[in-house]
């Protein structure tokens, strides 16, 4: 029963792989304190160690255990990524659904704001805002990423809402006396579930990458633990030049794997969204709707 909604994920190899990778990282994130052998910040071990039995990924130049950092970073990165992904999807939904449903002037104004946010150079904007907020934690960064990155989703939701709003079941809902807000929440949103899920996945991927980029540029609180911060330290300590690839490679691979799991899972969502892939046959227009151009 609980597993039923997950069924589509196992419908093909790609999404199943994605789902399994995702699950692994989810477990890592949830049980980080149990999995990680040491504290991620304690600088108490021999510095600059290559991988050993005690330190699987070696240690940093300040003697921190890289493996433990990796595990705890998974937690932060996932929280930040999904937090930002979900938040930006919610903002996008609010803008997109209201604009698409209301139409007219409301739509014109909201669309304008959307387009503006779409047009503002994302990373550049982020960098400026970051500079304003001073080195912020990954969570604050997640917030900013969400607040600057919702527009694309909003556009998608808007156009989907517009097609949905034209469908008769919305008129029918009006006829049954539902308020606009209720229609938006109970009639329109449930019909965009797959779009919403897809948007969350891509927004999450975007947020994870953006967060890593910001951290890499040094625009994140260096006390925090995230894959981006790990990369920042690795690169500023010339990890590659020193041959300490075990410091540089894992965070990148971690990001790539989580990202990959997201896009792979999205295949399953595609399958649900794409009407052509559904077995259900679309009924033909028996009326004479299209008789005039």
């Amino acid at each position, binding site marked *: 029963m609980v597993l039923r909604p997950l069924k589509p994920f196992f419908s093909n190899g790609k999404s199943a792989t994605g789902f399994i990778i995702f699950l692994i990282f989810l477990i890592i994130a949830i049980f980080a304190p149990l999995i990680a052998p040491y504290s991620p910040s304690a600088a108490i071990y021999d510095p600059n160690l290559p991988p050993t039995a005690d330190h699987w990924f070696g240690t940093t130049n300040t003697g921190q255990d890289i493996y433990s950092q990796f595990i705890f970073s998974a937690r932060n990165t996932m929280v930040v990524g999904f937090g930002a992904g979900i938040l930006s999807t919610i903002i996008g939904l609010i803008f997109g659904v209201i604009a698409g449903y209301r139409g007219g002037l409301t739509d014109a104004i909201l669309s304008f704001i959307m387009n503006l946010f779409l047009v503002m150079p994302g990373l550049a904007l982020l960098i400026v805002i970051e500079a304003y907020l001073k080195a912020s934690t990954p969570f604050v960064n997640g917030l900013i990423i969400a607040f600057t990155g919702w527009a694309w989703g909003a556009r998608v939701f808007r156009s989907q809402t517009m097609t949905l709003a034209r469908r*008769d079941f919305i008129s029918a809902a009006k006829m049954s006396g539902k308020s606009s807000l209720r229609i938006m929440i109970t009639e329109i949103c449930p*019909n965009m579930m797959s779009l919403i899920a897809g948007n969350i996945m891509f927004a999450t991927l975007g947020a994870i990458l953006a967060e890593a980029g910001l951290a890499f540029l040094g625009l994140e609180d260096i006390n925090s633990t995230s894959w981006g911060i790990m990369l920042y330290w690795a690169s500023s300590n010339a990890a590659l030049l020193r041959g300490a690839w075990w410091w540089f490679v894992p965070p990148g691979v971690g990001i790539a794997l989580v990202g990959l799991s997201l896009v792979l899972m999205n295949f399953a969502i595609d399958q649900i969204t794409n009407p052509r892939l559904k077995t259900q046959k679309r009924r033909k227009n028996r009326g004479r709707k299209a008789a005039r151009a």
Partner: protein
Amino acid sequence: MNEQSIVLVKVEDLVIKFPVRGDRKKKYITPVDNVNLEIKKGEVLALVGESGSGKTTIGRALVRLVKPTEGTITVHGKKVNEIRGKDLKDYRQVAQIIFQDPFGSLNPVKTIEGHLRFPLKKHQGYRGKALDEKVADLLLQVGLTPVQEIRKKHPHELSGGQRQRLAIARALAVNPQFIVADEPTSMLDVSIRAGILQLMNDLKRDLGLSYLYITHDLASARYFGDRIMVLYGGKVMEIADSKELIKNPLNPYTRLLLAATPGSESQIDLTDMTNDPPDLSEDRRGCPFVHRCPLATDVCRETMPALEEAAENHFVACHHLDKREQWN
């Protein structure tokens, strides 16, 4: 018969305009132009006309999904043009609509009973067990059986006919007095259509419902409608008792429509008649049918003929009623 004479819905001088994207300045089309009609309690008024003649727009205006631009709609003696909020909510309980498309008018992610619960709760105040029972009643009433099995299903698991039945049940859920049936069978299979018409007929008889029955099929209009109103280009061309209208069509457009209907006996050569749709622009003049009408003269181009009673209860709008014999 006494009941029959109570006028439930009265529409006077209804005009509806829609803005359209013009090339430069904002333009309007007038898909409904000066329409008058009356529906008595327990009566079915059939509205026929070609695609785009404004049938749906009238229907939607009657249930207030579209706001009339001009004119008045009176239901039960109460003007409903401008009502909002609570009044509108109350009005929803009087008038309901069944949409043409049984696929588009159901929310694909809601269950069958999900479609019925809200209106029952909101308008009739059912709760808990009573609500469940009422849902079952309704489903039974429209012939959606076995009820317990069907109520948990989703629309895509139903056949077209079943969906249309659900749409009817949903309209009934608020216990209305008047239903706009907007081409309720045009998307259904022949074998299913008759069943839906039958069902609507039964409901009319049992519940004393009034209908505005919108269709493009004269045959079913004649079958289901007490009276038929013919619409062209947003204007009423003719209105009469069903049998009378089919037997004795007076307006050239009605006759054309009749001739085009498969199975009709009248033969009119249609092949070289242009298919241009009628002009709906705001500033049009004259009869909308003029560019297709074989009887058209300058008068037709200049002024719209008034609706006149040509026979008893048979109203028609045409400048050339006298010339109709020439054209057959």
